[in-house]
């Protein structure tokens, strides 16, 4: 069994995210059903579940890439609604890494990373570049700074995507299946980066199928099915002693192969 990561931080009492009775529909399809979730600062949460269960939709509601129609979502005390000022504030403090990287192909790696600090935090270019190089070093690809995304491998691109989000120095990172689009030999490098991030104390919510990562880093695993949270628990209890039948079925499907 993978050894538990040495987490630097302590999970504080401060509430980062609170979702109460959240419901969302796509047309007539009820995609999120009665979601209730509280996330404290310092937590590392892994959300898993079959495809179509609403996991991605849930985290995308947290930075308003998707809109919820019922219930309340508060991020760092700010309510998510149609007020653009609120949305701007939230997005500045919440970073997101996508399945398909979504790097800007017409900009260099460095420019990808400095775009938001310059235009959102209004930093001078030199300072933004300094910060960018620092994070690029942290994800271990500083030498690629002047290349273009098309010249990098998938794993390298995803690490750049992580660095890009980190340059805004967010308080919370959202990961939407970050390794699902990668060739197998590149998954490890990205997961290692994420583990290091967790060890340094970053709060994160991760939608992923990588259960080894969950065991190593997560303090809580959530299982979703058909739009609702079915079961959640600490990783060891979750994997060794799943309570619900649906959880058991899902685990048997993904852990056996």
């Amino acid at each position, binding site marked *: 069994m993978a050894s*538990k990561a040495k987490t630097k931080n302590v999970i504080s009492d401060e509430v980062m995210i609170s979702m109460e009775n959240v419901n969302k*529909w796509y047309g007539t399809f009820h995609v999120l*059903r009665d979601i209730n979730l509280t996330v404290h600062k310092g937590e590392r949460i892994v959300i898993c579940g079959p495809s179509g269960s609403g996991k991605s939709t849930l985290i995308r509601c947290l930075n308003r890439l998707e809109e919820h*129609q019922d219930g309340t979502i508060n991020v760092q005390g700010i309510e998510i609604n149609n007020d653009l000022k609120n949305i701007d504030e939230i997005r500045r403090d919440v970073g997101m890494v996508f399945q398909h990287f979504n790097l800007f192909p017409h900009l260099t790696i460095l420019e990808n990373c400095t775009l938001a600090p310059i235009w959102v935090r209004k930093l001078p270019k030199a300072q933004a570049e300094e910060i960018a190089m620092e994070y690029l070093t942290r994800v271990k690809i500083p030498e690629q700074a002047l290349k273009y995304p098309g010249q990098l491998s998938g794993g390298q691109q995803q690490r750049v995507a992580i660095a890009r989000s980190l340059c805004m120095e967010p308080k919370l990172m959202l990961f939407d299946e970050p390794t699902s689009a990668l060739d197998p030999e590149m998954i490890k490098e990205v997961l290692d980066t994420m583990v290091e991030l967790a060890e340094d104390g970053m709060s994160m919510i991760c939608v992923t199928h990588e259960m080894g990562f969950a065991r190593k880093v997560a303090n809580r695993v959530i299982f979703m099915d058909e739009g*609702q*949270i079915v079961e959640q*628990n*600490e990783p060891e209890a979750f994997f060794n002693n799943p309570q*619900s039948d649906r959880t058991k079925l899902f685990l048997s499907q993904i852990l056996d192969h």
Partner: protein
Amino acid sequence: MANARDKKYEFVRREDAPILPPPATEAGITGWLWHNIFESMADYSSIGAGIRSLSMAILSVLILYFGGAQIYALIDFTIFSAVFSDPEGIKREACWTVDQGGALPSGWHGACWPFVVAKQKFLLYGAYPAEELWRVNLTGLVGLVGLVWVLIEKLPYRREVGAAMLTLYPLMAFILLTGGNTDTEFFNIGIWLVIGLAIISAGRLGKRGFLGSTFSEFGTLIGFTGWVFLIFNAVRGVAAVDFGLEPIDTRDWGGLLITLVVAITGIVASLPLGIILALGRRSEMPVARLLSTIFIEFWRGIPLITVLFMASVMLPLFMPEGVNFDNLLRALIGVMLFSAAYMAEVIRGGLQAIDKGQYEGAQAMGLSYWQTMRLVILPQALTHVIPGIVNTFIGLFKDTTLVSIVGIFDLLGAAQSTIADPSWSSHVQALSVYVYVALLFFVFCFAMSRYSIYMENKLSKSRSH
């Protein structure tokens, strides 16, 4: 770690949350109305957003008013206010207002459909003799049946029908429409047929090695040339047979008949030339590549009107004395060369889209260049380029209107000349026939573009297995 363990996250859902119906903004008609109309006008959270919402609202109202007025005007013109019949045969006076001497109320503005109906034959067939119209209708019917047969997937023998449509149908159409019985002497044709046969045999013998090593290399090419001679003269022969049909000069053709003849002949005839040019442009032989590129870029760089001028004015100069060129034929040649250049680019796109592995696989099997092209590459490429070909055809179909400028009566030219008829002159004469012709073109072109989109979607779905 101790802290983490103390927190009890354990949670198991005992009861499923109910699946609720969506709020009004998400589903059904209210949902559609919200997302498609009102949502963009509802955001007033800041000044900028408020201004945006208001302008959307104002713009929508303006467009509804303006657009609605135009659409209503069109429907009113073509249906509500239109005159539909002329029972007393008074012709133009049926479409006059009281101020002009007719019976319609002052300020009336509507289509004069009796005029269009009276000109129907002229618009569709031109000056083609009325007793012989059955020939045009037969040609059109066979063409339509053939086309539909090839397009509908469930029918058998689609490929054979398609091949027949591309080869036998043009000959049949030519004979039916012009009357066949061309002035070629059968003796002349006979000689060429024999020559063709001889060349084919030489090619065959050459391939088997009976005529020396140089001949064996070029056996295929020689055989191909022989077949060309043979087929060409067989066609000439059939065209020369007297089937008892009355000959009809192409000057008497007009209207939709000409439009379809020019467009369809243009596309069908330009396909083989386009394929050759596309292959030439991609060839490794520098001469072939250069010549193809020059040809393609030349014809794509000049407007069709100059091509038609060139064809009608310069073509007689290029031919030896005594060779007389039918006016329609000149335009057809111009259109064919012009369309071949565009066709070549479309086909080249299709060839480029084919995976290199196909070429390599064929080479590994030992197929020659022409065999590879014929059996492996071109069938795949042609399927991929069907949307492109249909789009080129739509463009060509619209471009046929230009032949009216060089004196060939296509649909638009026929419409123009009906406007000059004084027995129907009224203030809605021009507008009525323009609306009619515009509707015809629109229906044709829109249907074809829908088909092209349908094919594109189908092909992209099948490609991504």
